[in-house]
């Protein structure tokens, strides 16, 4: 068992309640952490665990750049308090590739040029993985609708939808 990791930052001195212990499985590894009650999952990932793949785009749950999977369900990590996730399993973009092999959605994003600046990409990919698990989308229209919470300012949507579609149909050419 791992030693408990405490918040390394200097005390905030605001007299607010102290850290709370939580156990999270992050990308397959169990972590015992003490987190302030107001720490979001996104801040925990980015600031404490050095998992900077998930991005902070708007910090309001409206752009989707921070999308990660919690127990296979896609959530906005910026709106999810870490303490609410005690016992949960979190998968970030860093945890999708297995044994050096990209996840099929990652492969499809490369194959279809489904990004430009790349800032929304980790969120898009986690969202797509979640969508595929949900099994709700059948048509391009449904993909567009059910991916509409993930903004891409570069406007790479055509290729994003094509990439998701390819994995959904299992027609990936592979690389």
């Amino acid at each position, binding site marked *: 068992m791992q030693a408990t990791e405490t918040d390394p*930052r*200097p005390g*905030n*001195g*605001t007299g607010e309640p102290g850290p709370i212990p939580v156990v999270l499985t992050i990308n397959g590894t169990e972590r015992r952490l003490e987190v302030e009650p107001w720490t979001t999952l996104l801040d925990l990932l*980015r600031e404490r665990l*050095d*998992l*900077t*793949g*998930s*991005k*902070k*785009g*708007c*910090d*309001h749950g*409206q*752009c989707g*750049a921070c999308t990660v999977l919690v127990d296979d369900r896609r959530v906005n990590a910026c709106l999810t308090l870490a303490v609410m996730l005690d016992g949960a399993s979190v998968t*970030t*973009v*860093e945890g*999708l*590739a297995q044994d050096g092999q*990209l996840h099929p959605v*990652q*492969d499809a*994003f*490369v*194959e279809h*040029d489904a*990004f*430009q*600046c*790349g*800032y*929304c*990409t*980790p969120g898009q*990919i986690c969202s797509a993985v979640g969508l595929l698990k949900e099994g709700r989308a059948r048509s391009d*229209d449904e*993909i*567009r*609708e059910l*991916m*509409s*919470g*993930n*903004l*891409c*300012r*570069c*406007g*790479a*949507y*055509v*290729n*994003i*939808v094509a990439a998701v579609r390819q994995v959904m149909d299992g027609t990936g050419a592979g690389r």
Partner: protein
Amino acid sequence: MTRLQAVAAPLPHDSAELHVTGRARYVDDLPEPQGCLHAAVGQSARAHARIVRMDLSRVAAAPGVVAVLTGADFPGLNQIGPVLLDEPALAQHSVDYHGQAVFAVAATSYELARRAVTLAEIDYEDLPAAIHLEDALAENLDLLLPYEMRRGDPDAAMARSAHFLEGSFRLGGQDHFYLEGQIALAAPGEDGGMDVHASTQHPTEVQHVVARCLGEIDAKVRVECRRMGGGFGGKETQANQIAAIAAVLARKTGRPVKFRLDRDVDMTLTGKRHDFRIDYRVGFDEDGRIEAITFGQAARGGCSADLTGAIADRAMFHADNAYFFPHVRIRSRRLKTHTVSNTAFRGFGGPQGMLGIEEVIDEIARHLGRDPLDVRRANLYGPAPRNLTPYHMEVEDFVLPEIMDELEQSSGYRERRAAIEAWNRTSPVLKRGIALTPVKFGISFTTSHLNQAGALIQLYTDGSVLLNHGGTEMGQGLYVKVQQIVAEELQIPTGLIRITAADTSKVPNTSPTAASSGTDMNGMAALAAARTLKERLTTFAAEKYGVPAHKVVFQDGAILLGEHRMSLRELAKEAWMARVQLSATGYYATPKIHYDRDQAHGRPFYYFAYGAACCEAVIDTLTGENRILRADLLHDVGRSLNPAIDRGQIEGGFVQGLGWLTTEELWWTKEGALASHAPSTYKIPCASDLPRDFRVAIWERGRNQERSVHRSKAVGEPPLMLAIAAFQAIKDAIAQAVPGRGSPRLDAPATPERVLFAVNELRGRTAALDLARAAE
């Protein structure tokens, strides 16, 4: 053995694998240096006011705060203006817009910095504020001198015209909404040095502004940018302030400082696309052919000059779009308002100017009861004398008639227009419309001296190459394109060429990556560097192996020396042993361009990029909701350096233009506060906003007539203006909803609200007409 073909290959983005695995590092992802502090700014709560009292003692005493900074504390100048010194990093004595930065703090955490800035006590004495463009026009608040372009005698010609129209309309601004907000990380070095990681399209200007604010020489400041999470013009000058505040705080505390803007702060603090009012008067013949035209363009500059002068100029340079005006006058005013200083945004005034003339053409067509496409065609540039722009440049490469012919056919415009009219007769509530519009966009900075670029190529003795140039990567694929150019020239795989971050200490005095010119200029500079290196190696190899220089051939990873053959690795090692320099710089200055601004006369553009779009829209006449059902884009990228990247630029540019003209609405309160400062209130396109049927094609016959890099054409900005077809299609749907009652009154963006108002206003005209008829 064949030549290695890197250019024209649809290679993925150079960071593709990093992006999909989350390993691509942006500034906020870099490991924070030990002792790193976090900055935040306190923002003005007034649009225009004198600061009567500012007490920051509670801010300074707040937990975690290490330093508090005001404009008075700058070791150098408290000035971030790129052209004029009229914009403080931190307001002093008075504030000029709601949200302006007044002071800054550095604290031990981001959270504590943000909490601390809320504790300031500031008393203001309000001054008269002009918030909207109309306020500034009413008060005659000019930010910069007006400017005029003219050719011929438009007033006299207009008086002779058979037909005449005049009108006025408004078009809105646009927030960049790059997913990665503004950010800089400044670390003090020894002896006054300052290293800055900035998310910027213009590292050189950040270097200059940081040095200016620190009171140091430029050489002590190093600015680096590996990539941005989107720029779109919003990081051309707007990165200056962020880096300057971080650097001055770093100097003050002696510690590294990271300054990252929260989304709401980003949207209230930083500039946007200029909104415009455009007035016109036009005289034309029975075919809708323009005989004389005058434009009055009024741009809302905001509180400081920033790049407004050049942006308003470019709006004038595009007031003609693709059309010849026998007699023309364009007057431009650049107005001052007490709102954030508007700035560069993809197209840089071009879209505003272009929308102006497309509106006029549409009005002419509706006035004459003709198909707008026929009127567009009747007015296109042609052979001399119909080839002269309002700024006296000859249009030499006009391929639009071919592009428009092709698109008219491939989109089935004529048949679909007939089918839409028939469909509308049977559909009482939903109405459709269609439009086909062209784009002609001038390529080059209109500030001529910016049209230069540099590159640095270093060959190592294992045959690998390090590539650096002045261009920055914001997702547009510049880095992979330049890598392809160098790979082809040296005939080595792209995998042997290491792309490195834009860095003011490697390639100095660079221009911003802007004006769509990144690949044109940096590609050429890198090509020049590669050729210099190749020449040195060729001379060395020819001498050493006793073959004539022309027999030394770089081909597919090898160097052929007559019968002999060696790898670049071997040649590099041998050249090094023989003391041949393996590092080369390259430089490029765009030829042919000149512009006399006093006379409004010259050739500001090296060439033009062209394209055309056909869009079909549907509106709900009861709610104003609207959708683009189908879009066909045909765009000229010359000979594409990378069709995959170019296609992405065309699609993405169109989508961004679609947002500008349909859903993205900036809203200021009467107090001057930006009410739409987060994605909850500011709607950029999402996946489901795309046309259901979206057909994008690169024009296959494209070839740059000028000697651009591999005869390619710039592609960053031009496709944004293809979205004008979507706006015109919505307008067509409104006109078709209430037929025979003239042209709809529609300002941009065409939000559901505006569409509904336009439908109702047309219906009102009908009612008034019916009443008049009944009375007869």
